[in-house]
């Protein structure tokens, strides 16, 4: 387990999140000055990551569960982390469903959804059963293979940018803050939560990760602004997959493939498998340590089976959006409470030792 690998995983988790629901959410909540909404999210995440890492750095070699239970005791930690477990479970189910819908629409119109779900969930299960260091190694391998694809599919349509669409650039009222949907966009920034599960002997320095997050902020901006600059706000808001469509606006002679959105879908679903593996591993570890001390393989298999059945119940994308919105409540809870609980445990420890 090396730090560059963790950073690679961190980047890829964020890329997956921004390539899925994020663009649509941001386009929904405001019609002007989207950058304000995006950057506010980014700054909030930076703040939370900073608090989280500061807290973790006081407990080298321990993970977040051990840290919180040290101060609160077993039952309270179960109560605090229960929403996190719920969030992970539904997050995984819903995001998988999202990816599967996308695959179904773009690539495999005739293949039944359950068959796609089956293969799409088998891989994260396999990876999660092998443990976190394996996931890290996969992430390093996929990083080399997928990042070029992601960059290619994201910026390929730069030719079609119409920079007039960037205006209006300023929204003094920040009207998006009043919309509940805006807060569900925060879920796309939950990719940092796995850091607490690592039990690193030498904790991360927050400053290094901040640099990575500034680069990521640029990508968050691009995922929204690429479709926005091509289609203009009024058109982009009508799409279900704006990024996929953005890569379809271009025709490259030298690529033998005609349908460039394939690259976009293939790369984002590939990263989706990685995210699913990480989330499944986090959920499995959490459940094992807090609620059900049995073999991980059983927990992971049980979770996957439950997710498979549950995701069959999500029939269309409006259902999906509804559930995603609901799941953002435990999501935001976890994003706020986990870093705070860890940081407060750190403070408490310092006070106790002083």
């Amino acid at each position: 387990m090396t730090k560059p690998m963790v950073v690679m995983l961190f980047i890829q988790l964020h890329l997956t999140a921004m390539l899925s629901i994020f663009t649509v959410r941001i386009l929904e909540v405001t019609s002007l000055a989207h950058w304000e909404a995006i950057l506010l999210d980014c700054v909030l995440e930076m703040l939370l990551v900073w608090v989280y890492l500061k807290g973790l750095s006081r407990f080298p070699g321990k993970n977040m569960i051990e840290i919180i239970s040290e101060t609160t005791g077993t039952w309270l930690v179960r109560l605090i982390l229960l929403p996190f477990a719920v969030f992970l479970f539904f997050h995984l189910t819903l995001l998988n469903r999202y990816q599967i819908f996308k695959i179904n629409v773009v690539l495999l119109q005739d293949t039944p959804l359950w068959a796609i779900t089956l293969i799409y969930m088998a891989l994260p299960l396999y990876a999660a059963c092998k443990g976190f260091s394996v996931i890290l190694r996969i992430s390093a391998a996929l990083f080399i293979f997928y990042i070029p694809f992601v960059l290619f599919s994201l910026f390929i349509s730069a030719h079609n940018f119409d920079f007039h669409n960037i205006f209006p650039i300023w929204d003094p009222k920040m009207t998006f803050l009043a919309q509940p949907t805006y807060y569900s966009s925060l879920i796309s920034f939950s990719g940092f939560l796995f850091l607490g599960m690592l039990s690193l002997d030498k904790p991360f320095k927050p400053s290094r990760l901040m640099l990575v997050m500034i680069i990521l902020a640029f990508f968050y901006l691009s995922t929204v602004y690429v479709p926005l600059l091509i289609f203009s706000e009024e058109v982009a808001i009508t799409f279900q997959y704006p990024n996929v469509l953005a890569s379809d606006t271009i025709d490259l002679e030298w690529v033998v493939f005609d349908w460039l959105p394939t690259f976009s879908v293939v790369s984002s679903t590939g990263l989706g498998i990685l995210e699913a593996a990480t989330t499944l591993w986090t959920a499995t570890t959490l459940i094992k340590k807090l609620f059900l001390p049995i073999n991980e393989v059983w927990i992971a298999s049980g979770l996957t089976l439950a997710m498979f059945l549950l995701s069959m119940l999500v029939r269309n994308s409006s259902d999906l959006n509804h559930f995603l919105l609901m799941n953002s409540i435990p999501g935001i809870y976890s994003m706020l409470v986990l870093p705070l609980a860890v940081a407060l445990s750190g403070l408490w420890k310092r006070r106790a030792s002083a």
Partner: protein
Amino acid sequence: MSNLIEQDWEKDLIHTFDLNSDFSIKTVTLFDQTVKVYYLSSLVDLTSTLVTWDQVISATGEDNHSLARDLLPLEFTVDGSYQEVADSLVKGKLIAKDPKSGKALVLDADMWPLNRSISASENENPLQSSIDGFTEKLDTNIGLIRRRISNKELVIESYILGTNSHREIALIYMKNASNPKVVQSVKDRLNRNKHKDVIHVNGLLQVLEQPKYSLVPTYLTSELPGEAVQNLLDGKVVILMDLFPNAYSFPAIVKDLWSFKLDLNYPYLYLLFFRCIRIAGIAFAIIMPGLYVVLNSVNPELLRIQLAISVAKSREGVPYPSFVEVMLMLLLMEMVIEATIRLPKNIGPTITMVGGIILGQAIVQARLVSNLLIIILAATTISNFTMAGYLNTIGIRIFKYVVLVLSSIYGILGLQVAMIWLFIYFAALKTFSVPYLSLSTKGKSPDD
């Protein structure tokens, strides 16, 4: 006199080896004493042995001969243990009966030259490097390595494995380059499984507790000492087995799929070029058949329309789905490879010619497969053999069927899933605690 009384060990020996036509009992005169000797005439050259001994004895120049003392540098006495005597006999030792005590003396004897001399390696073609290859004799092989590394950090340990049949192996590593954890765990396993008989490489792998089913080999084999030496310097542990003209280097890592160690005899730019070609070869070999099926039957819309039409045209009149078509041709190709690989050199060309005609011309004209598939097939096969190491090519040859099946079910998604599955498999694979997806075996691994 004890010379005349048949000892227990003699009776047992005669009883055990009586049926063997090469088991000889002779009475020879050594230093004016009549001595009974037992040996296997297929292994021991008795005349030459006696001449050698005569020279040794006359060099010492003493008059008062005692057989046991005179031959002291050559022998060891066995007190009654019949098992040791029998073991020594089958290894090609000469058993003499001490005329005074009646005990068995196990003596080194001159053996018939049953070894091939050092020659160019038979199965690997080194370019731009020394061409001598390992032989079947362990000591010669160790010597070949020793000569190439004149470094005091080189450690050569010897082990004898097996209960019924003994097999000598040598464990070789560089003290300063190898990962101490790997060396220790190899030693532990060798000691733990010492009793297992090792007849072939699979036996050695069992002793080393390697996974029985593994897509890629967890070790590298090479007939070239240069290759083995570079593996040693890279921190790998090399195992030489008596009677096998190969060096087995543990553990293999992903880099070994494309890096042939003798590339280092080229300028660096050329080395990079070769390795890039091989990496591309691996990608081609895995993806091509699957991609053909994807573009033909599941996701034809991915291709440009002109290309899609020409692909479809080439399949005009082919009576079965593209999956069956590809499967058929791949299997045929595997059979050609399998058939030619061990055939005598004067029959091989026949198969090549017949295969060439069928695969290349007739099958297309009969509209059984498409033109394009022949190109894909050729590209796949050629690219498969660009990889470094023959063993590595087989794993990839097998894996392309997984890709093929998943691609024909799930199209481009299946292709991607198969690739990610391969990554997960590689990521989870560990040999002696070294992850397969590491890029160096030197020193301590940063992982876990």
